[in-house]
């Protein structure tokens, strides 16, 4: 249906009741092009007139939709990040970054708060899954040659995203303040301390002191809930944007033709 026709259509709706008309006007002011798009024009507008959908191109190649090509790993990683953001913000309502209080809050989440254990468990398992999925996604891109020109930069952004994922997981590890958390972070930051010159300052920087304590908890908390997720969002935006700028997912048609006679 042409836009002009739609507009004419709108003007001719005067015979409707006032509420129906208001409702229709309201709906049209938000979604200009009908409900479920039926034709090519509607399908195009549906994607590029919607803030949340317009990160997609209007059309994608069949090859990139094949599940056996990507296993949906990139999208799963993004979905996990969304779930982690949601559950993480919800957990913040009860969490308290204090060496004396944090552990009690974990017990409260488990026993007293309604659905507290679900949010904590989902957050934990989604975090573990995200590390695995991001590594698998990187393996997928490598094994299909997806890092080759023009996608060099996006591969590098991907490496940064992997490091951020590890950083988020590591900083989150300390927050429950149990034995597992305390000693994993003690050991982990000591490993960082072995780097020449910057190692020891970096360790002190992360811990806010010589040993894991209250200062380390507050630093890890700020990194975990603000700084690293913020960086993650920025780099994810660049990553997604570059997929489109680099011409979508890698595709066999990008291969340079080999020598004559060698037709593959």
């Amino acid at each position, binding site marked *: 249906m042409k*836009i002009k026709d739609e507009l004419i259509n709108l003007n001719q709706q005067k015979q409707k009741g006032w509420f129906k008309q208001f409702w229709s006007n309201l709906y049209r002011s938000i979604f200009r092009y009908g409900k479920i798009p039926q034709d090519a024009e509607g399908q195009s507008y549906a994607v590029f007139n919607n803030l949340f959908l317009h990160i997609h191109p209007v059309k994608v190649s069949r090859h990139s939709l094949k599940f056996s090509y990507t296993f949906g790993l990139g999208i799963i990683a993004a979905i996990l990040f969304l779930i982690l953001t949601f559950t993480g913000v919800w957990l913040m309502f009860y969490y308290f970054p204090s060496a004396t209080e944090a552990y009690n809050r974990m017990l409260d989440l488990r026993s007293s708060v309604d659905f507290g254990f679900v949010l904590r468990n989902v957050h934990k398992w989604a975090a573990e899954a995200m590390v695995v999925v991001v590594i698998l996604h990187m393996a997928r891109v490598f094994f299909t040659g997806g890092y080759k020109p023009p996608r*060099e930069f996006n591969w590098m952004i991907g490496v940064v995203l992997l490091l951020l994922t590890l950083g988020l997981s590591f900083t989150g590890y300390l927050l429950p303040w149990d034995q597992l958390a305390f000693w994993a972070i003690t050991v982990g930051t000591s490993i960082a301390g072995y780097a020449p010159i910057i190692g020891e300052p970096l360790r002190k920087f992360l811990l806010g002191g010589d040993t894991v304590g209250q200062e380390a908890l507050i630093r890890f908390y700020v990194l975990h809930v603000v700084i690293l997720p913020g960086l993650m969002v920025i780099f994810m935006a660049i990553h997604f944007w570059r997929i489109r700028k680099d011409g979508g997912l890698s595709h066999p048609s990008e291969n340079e033709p080999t020598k004559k006679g060698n037709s593959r």
Partner: protein
Amino acid sequence: MREIDTKQVFTKDANKTYGLMELVKGTKPTVGLQPDDMVFTWPHLLIRELVLFVVVTAFLLVSAFFFDAPLEEIANPNHPPNPAKAPWYFLGLQELVSYSAFIGGVLVPTFIVVILMLVPFIDRKKIGIGKWFAKERSFANGIFLTFLIIMLILIIVGTYFRGPNWEFVIPWETGGLH
């Protein structure tokens, strides 16, 4: 060539339902050689994303109901567990640290990150793109697969085969350390 009248190029035609959206640099249109290769994002991609979202969420909810996230006793700086382990993804590095602190803690991680960053600049030949384990690039794939398998083995050894005093143990003989 030099004097493009931009007003001309971007003129709106009231009879057209399409407009110029963006200019993309490239030697050929990305639409592909065969027109059949492209499908609409709505519904083909969006429905897949929705399905993935539902599946992932359902999977996490089910796991959350059946498996509790671990929570040990409150942190006590005076009583280290034996052995003390880093998060699982760092256990490969910790395994290396137990041989040499410098190699495991500094050299290997730095090397891995630098090499990963440089991968697309080392291997630039546009062959074997868009295909799993293409024969043309079995060498590169082989190296990366070996790297992944070595890291996986180190992580498994660090997670399951290291007991008290970081000594080598066989998990099923010591009655399930983990």
